[in-house]
């Protein structure tokens, strides 16, 4: 397979998955610009290692790369950012946002955004991308048992946050 053929095959198999890749990156990075950068970096990285994966494995494979690229950057952000800089990062779950009355969709988005990364990731992969435990385990690189317990706790926390919002009439 020459480079040109490889690119054509890569584009045919991987570009249709971009909405899944972007959604995951957007939920992990919590802002659009970073999500764009991560998706682009993930596609370039994926292309380097691409040798023709298909179907189900292709999707989980790409999302694993997206997740890894995002985590690398989140780690760096935590190490290098001063507190001031962190405050400037636009974030859907900032307190000002939470005090406004929200539409149902905004409420769900900010509730999910407020969850810890690990829980948010499995919820996005399971409920939005509808992946199996095995695939989620491959993407997040933790055992299936951990996927299961993160889902259980993530769901409970999300239900709790939504309930609190409703009680405070923020929805």
């Amino acid at each position, binding site marked *: 397979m020459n480079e040109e053929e490889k690119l054509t095959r890569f584009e045919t198999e991987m570009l249709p998955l971009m909405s899944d890749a972007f959604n995951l990156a957007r939920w992990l990075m919590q802002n659009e610009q970073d999500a764009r950068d991560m998706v682009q970096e993930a596609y*370039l990285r994926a292309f*380097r290692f691409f040798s023709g994966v*298909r179907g189900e494995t292709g999707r989980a494979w790409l999302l694993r790369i997206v997740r890894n690229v995002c985590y690398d950057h989140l780690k760096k952000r935590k190490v290098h950012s001063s507190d001031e800089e962190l405050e400037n990062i636009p974030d859907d779950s900032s307190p000002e946002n939470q005090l406004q009355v929200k539409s149902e969709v905004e409420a769900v988005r900010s509730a999910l955004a407020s969850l810890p990364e690990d829980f948010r990731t499995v*919820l996005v992969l399971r409920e939005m991308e509808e992946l*199996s435990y095995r695939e989620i385990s491959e993407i997040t690189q933790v055992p299936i048992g951990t996927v299961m317990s993160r889902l259980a706790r993530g769901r409970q926390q999300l239900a709790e946050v*939504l309930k609190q919002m409703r009680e405070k009439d923020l929805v």
Partner: protein
Amino acid sequence: MTCDELYQQLDPFFDNELGLAEAQKVQQHLEQCAACEEAYASRLAVRQALQKPEVRFATPDDLRDQIQVELSKKVSPPRRRAWRVPAFEFPNWLLPSLAGAAAVLAVWFGSKLFLNETRSPNGLLATVTAQLVSDHMRSLLPDHLIDVVSTDQHTVKPWFAGKLSFSPPVYDLSDQGFKLIGGRLDYLGNQEIAAIVFQHHQHYINLFAWPKTESTHFPDTTLQKEGFNVYGWEANGLIMWAVTDAAPDALKTFVDLQKQKQQQGGTE
């Protein structure tokens, strides 16, 4: 099953990750325990909230072009972009390399939710559907479709008789466009079930049948999963599920013909 034990299995049950036997135990517990049923309902509410399409973040329009430009720089010599991959997106994993028609259906139904998802608790129904759809998909692999090849109902029916404790109804509907092509033993959980195979134009229909037990009750159910159309019903002490990549109206016609024959009884 205690509530603690149930709690360990609630999420895998909810996510269709349990075997049939375990799923049945969870289902039974949920029917009797209001507190656990509430925990199940709360998961369902979370799912419904997260699965609203607007909760997803849409991909910016220009990102795809931007990435394609970056990708083409990695190839030497850089190619000139003469074509554009159409912005046609549905999950690739829905598509085992089946008939092209399945692809069309997957797109058609891609945006619809699993119809019965809102009926609570329906983990068992979802488990059965998931298993039968996967049986159907496996049957489309080379050499997996049929154990007994025959277009004659008087050959297929006795073949089952020697292998199962019940007698599935086998009717040839060639005249109506649904050609009997054979039968196969398949599995639902650990249970052996009958799979009667029909062909409708270039589509296959797997009609699964197994005996009804007192603890299960399936009302007529129609839904689609992973691009396949499914219709389930009960007749003469058996539960019948048809799974196919043929269109919903063709499936409905097929099911109506089967029901008609079953009501008439006998094998003609």
